[in-house]
């Protein structure tokens, strides 16, 4: 049996759902279907790692961003718990894992990213968690109630937030990092040290320069052994070892991929009528002038809007300065724009480890392209405007490096 759908969306996260919403606002009658490999309707994935949600300080139902009947009301078919296993770009069909084939006119691939599989021996034991989906979160929420000791492996935003949540739950937390400072090489040493100090003050033990040798226990985790021989007893391990996109089927269908699905600034792939949005999209960023792939909520939401609109016949480029923020242990961390370090970039720092507030402004070809801000989140908006306006830094180096200088003055 073959179903015909005008707008087919693979991925039920914020990118895919927002696209469906936009399409419906433009095309009142065209059939829309969302295929999701999760069972759940749209929920706030970003909320999953936040302590208030985890410790059930806010009602669980706040996680839902759409009501159960939203799909029906908007005449959007929600095919949940199904995976798209192949794409035929010539006949314009996709096949699901239940062998159902759907013919599309326009296709959006908003498949997100998945947690990287952890290869450490014993990583399949109960008590080893990844945090990506609502089901992952539910399992951790249940386990947190009885665990006494936890180990977080890897740095990054989620790990930072998980340490905060676990400490608030009264659990003894050890953070194991392969690097010599937190978030190396994305952050420099002073940034990393401010974060580490905050974690330590909050009671988190940090072990640097260490990798997991193996995970011990029976069916359940009992301890983790590091490559230096050190053994840490624990009932929970949270593996924050990064994410990747599952692209095998997409690649073999003829759609161009790199680390993500390649797209131009209109979020169109190399195949006509196939679009991509969200964490899986490696798109031409018109502000940076290069291809980038971003994994954050606002980016996915905005790309869903643009891709959805373009699927209905618009031709809007995606233009946005991306950002992500977090807070915990008495500090705030914000990333804005492109924060990847590379040889063609220089950095102006403002503030220091000593004053407890430290920003890094990343410069390429005389313009600001990104920033990392520790305890300086209030500068996020201004810096995003400077990036957007292609602000030339020449002659302003002193102001940019003075932590007391108000950056708003530069916009005027």
């Amino acid at each position: 049996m073959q179903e015909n759908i005008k707008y087919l969306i693979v991925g039920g996260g914020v990118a895919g759902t927002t696209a469906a919403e936009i399409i419906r606002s433009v095309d009142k009658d065209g059939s829309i279907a969302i295929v999701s490999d999760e069972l759940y309707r749209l929920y706030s994935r970003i909320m999953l790692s936040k302590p208030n949600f985890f410790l059930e300080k806010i009602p669980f139902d706040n996680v839902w961003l759409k009501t159960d009947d939203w799909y029906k009301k908007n005449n959007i078919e929600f095919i949940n718990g199904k995976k798209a296993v192949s794409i035929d770009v010539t006949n314009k069909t996709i096949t699901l894992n239940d062998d159902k084939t759907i013919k599309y006119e326009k296709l959006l691939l908003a498949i997100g990213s998945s947690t990287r599989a952890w290869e450490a021996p014993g990583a399949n034991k109960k008590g080893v968690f990844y945090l990506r989906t609502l089901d992952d979160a539910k399992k951790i929420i249940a386990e947190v109630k009885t665990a006494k000791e936890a180990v977080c492996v890897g740095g990054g935003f989620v790990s930072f937030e998980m340490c905060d949540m676990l400490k608030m739950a009264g659990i003894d937390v050890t953070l194991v990092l392969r690097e010599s400072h937190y978030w190396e090489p994305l952050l420099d040493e002073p940034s990393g040290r401010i974060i580490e100090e905050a974690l330590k003050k909050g009671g988190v033990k940090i072990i640097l320069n260490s990798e997991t040798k193996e995970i011990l226990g029976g069916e359940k985790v009992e301890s983790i052994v590091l490559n230096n021989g050190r053994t840490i007893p624990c009932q929970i391990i949270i593996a924050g070892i990064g994410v990747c996109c599952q692209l095998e089927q997409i690649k073999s269908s003829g759609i161009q991929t790199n680390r993500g699905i390649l797209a131009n600034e209109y979020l169109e792939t190399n195949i006509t009528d196939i679009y991509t949005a969200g964490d899986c999209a490696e798109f031409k960023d018109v502000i940076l002038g290069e291809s980038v792939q971003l994994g954050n909520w606002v980016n996915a939401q905005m790309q869903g809007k643009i891709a959805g609109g373009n699927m209905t016949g618009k031709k809007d480029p995606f233009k946005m300065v991306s950002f992500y923020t977090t807070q915990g242990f008495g500090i705030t961390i914000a990333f804005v724009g492109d924060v990847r370090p590379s040889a063609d970039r220089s950095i102006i720092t403002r503030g220091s480890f000593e004053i407890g507030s430290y920003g890094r402004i990343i410069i390429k070809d005389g313009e600001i392209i990104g920033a990392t801000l520790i305890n300086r989140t209030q500068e996020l908006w201004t810096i995003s405007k400077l990036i957007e306006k292609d602000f030339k830094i020449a002659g302003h180096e002193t102001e940019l490096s003075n932590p007391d200088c108000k950056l708003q003055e530069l916009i005027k």
Partner: protein
Amino acid sequence: MKVDNYKLIIFSMDKKVSKIIVDRNLCIGAASCVIAACDVFELDAENKAVIKLKNNIKNSGPAERPNLEGDAVKDADIVAAAQSCPTKAITLIAEDGSNIYP
């Protein structure tokens, strides 16, 4: 280059925004509201969104529309800010007391 993706409103509005409320328990400081409507929202020291009111007052509301510091802000920007919130922490109330968003 003008970045105006935030100005995309999903559904047209027939009511005017009269009151804004931020739920501090839900707010995670994602800052999407600040980027969408910087004259109305900013983050406070706890990294929670606050509404900028006249006389340099800043709080989570409820904030009446005429008391906003940036009273010339368009409703479309305020709605875009609320819609962009990943935890639906911003509630917008119309003049007749009904919810505009969420």
